[in-house]
């Protein structure tokens, strides 16, 4: 899943239209995707195996946790057998793997619920948070970058660059504290805690997710703003098609919106895809702070109670998402740069 070579900054050819899309649907693509997916399997295997090893080396095990130190060795052994944690490491891993292939992720050692159902309940919450964060960040970044790029080094541009630099430098957990203090406690506009499922009212659901989403979104927004703005400005400065368009009398705004933006879109989407993987880690703290019952929160408590099936299940899903997101990013990037052959950089 390595990313392909990054193209030198100014040498990538540009098109004024979306011809890139047609290249993408040719067959080398399918071979490329196929190969990447094949390669992803050892990565997933490596991650899950590593997790197994790591968790099993932690002090205490699930059977002991549930029964407590005062239990007799027989009782611990009995429960361990029942839970399957008495077998050697490799055998346990093998069993888990064989169940995985059949779609069975096992059951939580603490609550007995099936891991699939736990993930099924928790993942959507985390996803909604991430989606909301992306929406906010892109929704603000694009207009700001557009206006900034319209007049480079102008007042708006410079101000927005200063603020985005500041926004990038704030830790999201600190931001969360500040947001709650002002918007929940002082102004009472938004709730400080909790989660309301969408079926209880979409508006309420979104209201409860707003502060958490902003905490995640701010640094993302600043990053995308800077990236997009630089990219746009560069195009406006250097690309031939821009000069042509201007010579033809096309308005500056139109040039930016219809041409430059489209070309920059791929880069932006690539960045989004790559961020997806790391965001899953970021959301853990946010979920804790705001009491959202998402996957990060679940992973954390499962590690503590040495609830191996839940940890493995969550790690597997995380890794899968990271792998797929990276694949998507690679695809998009390769589609953009015709000089990167699908097979040339392994």
């Amino acid at each position, binding site marked *: 899943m390595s990313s392909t070579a990054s193209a030198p900054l100014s040498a990538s050819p540009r098109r004024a239209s979306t011809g890139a899309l047609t290249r993408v649907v040719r067959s080398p693509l399918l071979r490329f995707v196929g190969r990447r997916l094949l390669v992803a399997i050892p990565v997933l295997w490596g991650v899950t195996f590593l997790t197994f090893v790591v968790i099993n080396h932690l*002090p205490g095990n699930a059977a002991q946790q549930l029964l407590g130190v005062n*239990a007799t060795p027989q009782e611990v052994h009995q429960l361990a057998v029942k839970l399957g944690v008495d077998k050697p490491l490799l055998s346990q891993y093998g069993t888990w793997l064989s169940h995985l292939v059949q779609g069975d992720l096992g059951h939580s050692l*603490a*609550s*007995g619920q099936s891991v699939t159902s736990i993930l099924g309940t928790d993942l959507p919450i985390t996803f909604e948070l991430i989606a909301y964060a992306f929406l906010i960040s892109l929704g603000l970044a694009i207009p700001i970058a557009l206006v900034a790029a319209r007049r480079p080094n102008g007042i708006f541009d410079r101000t927005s660059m200063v603020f985005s630099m500041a926004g990038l430098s704030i830790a999201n957990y600190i931001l969360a504290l500040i947001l709650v203090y002002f918007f929940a406690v002082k102004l009472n506009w938004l*709730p400080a*805690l909790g989660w309301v499922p969408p079926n209880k009212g979409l508006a309420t659901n979104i209201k409860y997710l707003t502060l958490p989403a902003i905490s995640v979104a701010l640094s993302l927004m600043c990053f995308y703003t800077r990236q997009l703005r630089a990219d746009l400005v560069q195009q406006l400065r250097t690309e031939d098609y821009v000069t042509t368009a201007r010579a033809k009398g096309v308005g500056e705004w139109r040039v930016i919106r219809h041409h430059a933006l489209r070309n920059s879109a791929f880069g932006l989407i690539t960045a989004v895809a790559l961020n997806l993987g790391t965001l899953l880690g970021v959301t853990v703290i946010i979920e*804790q702070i705001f009491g959202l019952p998402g996957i990060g929160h679940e992973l954390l408590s499962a590690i*503590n*109670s040495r609830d191996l099936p839940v940890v493995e299940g969550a790690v597997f899903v995380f890794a899968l998402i990271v792998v797929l997101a990276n694949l998507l990013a690679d695809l998009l990037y390769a589609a953009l740069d015709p000089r990167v052959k699908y097979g040339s950089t392994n």
Partner: protein
Amino acid sequence: MVGSTGESPLSRPRAGRSPAWMSRRRCGASLIAVCACVAVTACGSSSKPATSSAATSSAATSSASGTGTSSASGTGHAGGTLTVLESAGFAGDWPTGLDPATNTNGAADQSQMDAIYAEPFELQPGGKLAPDLATGYKFSNGGKTVTVTFRKGLKFSDGTPLNAQAVAFNWNRDLKSPCTCKPTIMVKAITAADDSTVKVDMLVPDGAFINQLQDSNFSWIASPTALKKMGEQQFKLKPVGAGPFTVVSDTLSNQLVLKKNPTYWDTGKPLLDGLTFKTTAGDETALEAMQSGQAQAYEGMNTPKLVNSFKDKFTITAQPSTSPYDIQLNTAIPPFNNKDARLAIYYATDTALLNQKLFGNIYPDTQSFTAQAGLFYNPTVPGYPGYDLNKAKAMVKQIGGLNVNFFTITQPATQNFMVALQQMWKQAGINASIHFYSLASLIQQFQGKWQAALQTAGAWDPAGGVGVAFRFNSHSPFSGVHDPKLDDLLNQGQGATDPATRKSFYDKAAEYIAQNAYGPFLFPVATWNVAAHGVTGPGLTSAIPSVAVNPQVLWEDVSAS
């Protein structure tokens, strides 16, 4: 007799809103929870019967029925819903569900469990037990047998009868359960003598049985029919009991939504139409959530500094504490197999200063495992080695220096405490390295060569919960003391059915501990309950002694306006 928590404090943020890992706010609570987490034979695994001073043949039967509950803060109005916050890492965690047979966090989740199941007897403001589901009890057979009489005509919320058979079924089921939470009362047999009387035959006299119910999963009776119909897996997520509220929805360790049980035996109660428990990261987050109007109550606040900031905004009620902090010393191995080293710790610990600076002198210093709100309170213990820096220095010099590995559970509240103790001991020449562990790792510590730990000891009834035996009985894996004489005193204290006799044994035990310098006691855990203006309820805005750390709240009497 103890519930237990399988949840590590590590799992929640520590700082008020922080996650995970550590939100474990309840310093004392978690310490108790640690104890709770490990099934401990508080009555000791010795089957030596109590000696002659034990029980007379029966204690008086407790008062007959009647409503049995009283709102200490006056009558509230019916109606409305209340959202109450609980702290993650303690009461806000119920990772194994809410079935009394398998809830490892029962001791911490008392509020949730009481709301769903009610209890045989309820602890009232003022510290007396009153009948709730049960009407009375009687000891016999030298304290080895107790019969508990239940109210007639009780029904679970699914309509099936709550009779003696259901109770016996539950209690036997609890004892067979492979769970840390299984009660450790030494039972020979539990049977239903008739439809409303349960007979418990024990192997040793246990005069504390009824009190121990308070901190035991026995207190919660599940509907056998519902258990069978739903299966254990489903039941633990959506339990059925006979309490004032029934379960609407349950998101483990996050949110529990309850609504009024129309068939609750006490007509007119509960006052609330709905009750929701929500988990929060800690004191600061909870208070912020209350300020933003998201919740109207918070149980178990333990950050003294915040009390001042919020005392005008909310009703903050100090809860009578029953568990003092103590420093456990492992007398089995060096350095604390040497009494002089132990004495050095006693002399070097300025309890009064710690109390004043860290906790604002909310409760008086203690010298034993009892506290004001508990039974058998003993404020001063003759021969207790108090703070004396010079003696401490001399002692340390005498033994040629003292290095200590000192640990406790990871908690924001314990941090300052441990640091302060480290600084204090330094002055006497004691070098302590301090460590904080999550629950799982903490248990491991006790299995190894540990030296000293900051914990809490004691409960409302010293024989119950994280009582004394947990910390001082030779058979407890968490004890640093292995002294048959002390075991004997504690067993007798538990076995007797006459309160005066029990007190005399516990007094002797405290004196014995002090004489042998087994471990200093400091001052009780300080907690508060917070309620928005207009919310009232016994235990919430009035004081009910804590059984372990969290005081009980009588939810059926709580009103939102």
